[in-house]
Structure formats: structure tokens, C-alpha cells
């Protein structure tokens, strides 16, 4: 169901290069997927590789910085997801 998306192992060319850059970003261990690839929310954008750095560049300024603490940021994110009925 839904539109297709491409994980790390299926990626080539520009998408692979962008995934490599994403993998170099600091990421708390809890967010690292067990499959060892790129987190699913990044691969969800794979039909438009150039959008990935725009979206996750913004994410870095919000989820990797204060003034809200990490638990507070998680609270905001989780409530937003719950109200949007999204599992992510």
C-alpha cells in the first residue's frame, strides 16, 4: 500500500550519496534501526532525494537543539503523531 520507497541497500547514485551523508549524522542509538540501514522516516522521502537534506536539515535544528529538553521534544513529537493517528 502507498507509494514506493527505497532503503539503503536498494539505493544507487544520488540517493545512495545522500543516504551516506545521512548515516554520518550524529544519531542517538535509540533511533538507529536494527536493520542497520537508514531510518525509515528518511527512506520515506526517497522518491525525491534532494528533499531529504532540506527536511532533515530542518530536523537537526529542531530535534538536535534546545531549549526544550530531549524528553520534552519527544513528548511534543509523540502527541503530534498520536493525534495524527500515525505510528511514526
Amino acid at each position: 500500500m502507498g507509494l514506493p520507497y527505497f532503503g539503503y541497500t536498494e539505493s544507487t547514485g544520488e540517493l545512495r550519496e545522500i543516504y551516506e551523508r545521512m548515516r554520518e549524522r550524529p544519531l542517538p542509538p535509540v533511533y538507529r534501526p536494527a536493520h542497520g540501514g537508514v531510518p525509515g522516516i528518511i527512506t520515506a522521502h526517497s522518491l525525491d532525494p534532494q528533499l531529504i537534506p532540506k527536511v532533515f536539515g530542518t530536523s537537526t535544528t529542531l530535534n538536535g537543539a534546545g531549549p526544550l529538553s530531549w524528553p520534552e521534544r519527544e513528548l511534543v513529537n509523540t502527541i503530534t503523531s498520536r493525534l495524527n493517528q500515525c505510528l511514526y
Partner: protein
Amino acid sequence: MVRAPRAPHGDRRTRALGEIASLVTLEPWTLSRAYHADWHSAGLSDDDILHAIVLSAFFGHLNRIADAVAVPLDYQVRLSPPPTDPTAPPLLPSPVAVTGRPAIELSRRPATAQAIAAWRTYIFDRDAPLTRRQRTVLARWVSLFLGDGGISTPDDLTANPIDGALRELAETITLAPWKLSDETFRPLRKHGLDDAAIFDACAVTSSAGFFSRVQVALATLMRDRA
């Protein structure tokens, strides 16, 4: 608090953050000076409030893209999310158009403002897969649903079948993202849009929702409650 986000939980600061996330997600046009003052008295600074508003709006974008491609959750969580209820009614569209200066300037977070500006330019300043006009059509519908009076309403558009399909997509993504399915995309496929073009339409709509949600939430904090 996650199971019932609008029920009272925790200390005042925690409840205020939960309230910001709820209102930004469900009805950003209802914020007001009274909420702003209440959140201050709960211990939140303007920088805290700005962070929470932009963060919630941003996560709303991630939710919508995750739904568009139905990506599975791939990291461990302590509390499994409840199943989606596809019969849940859509969110209500805004009954008002909000204009005016923001109560808190986004420029207080310069790195965030710069990143959003680059994102916005990428979304609107190109002609493929969607045309610039189609991008504008989507953004105008989104702004109408979210009450962003800074973007002109779409009622002057000449109706054509593709615009109609784009409007339907914009409505589902903005007001009922949990209903996204192959069926949602079928009208656009009938008009010849391929996966990349349909994803572009989803990304434009979702991104416009992020931009408008921030704009509306920050501007309504200047207003007295209706």
C-alpha cells in the same frame, strides 16, 4: 498523556507542552494571547513556545510522508502506538483566515529559519515533476484548510480535472492523513501522474502544511480569543 493527549497530566509545564502540540496539530487558528500568557505562567519562555510550535508542525510533516508511503516503524519503542482508526472523522478546516505579524519571530531560531527558507525554495521554485502552478494550487488549498490568510484563497482558480484531483489530495493529506491509501492516489494516476509526481504532490502539500501551520500558530498568539 500520549493515549489521551488532551486530558490533564503531569505538571503545568508538561501540560502546556501537550496543549501546544494538540492545538498546533488540530486547530492552530485557535491559539490566542490568553494561551500565550497561560503558557508563560506555566514556566515556558517564548523560545520554549516557539520550539514546541515549530517542532509539532514539523512532526506533522513527517507523519504525513510516513503515511503516504506506509513506511513501517523501524526502531524500538516502549509503548506501541495504537492501531489507526481509518473511520475517524477528518480534522475540521479553519473557519477563519489568519493574517498579521507573528507574536514570536521565527528568526529567534536563526538556523531553523534558514533551513525552512531553503526547504520552501526547493518546494516551490521548480517545474518538475509538478509545475509551479500545480505547487501553488496545492499550497492555496492547504492555506485555506489551515486558515493561513497570508496566501490567497483558491476560489478564483479555473477548475480543471487535475486541479480537482490535487484539491482532493490536499484535503486528505491536511485534514485526514490517516486515510491515505492507494485509493487516494488513483485520480492522479488517471491523469497520468507517476509515482514521482504523486510523491511530489504529497511532499508539496505536507510541506505547505508545515509552513502554514507555523505561520498561523505564531500569528494567532497575537490575537484575543474569539
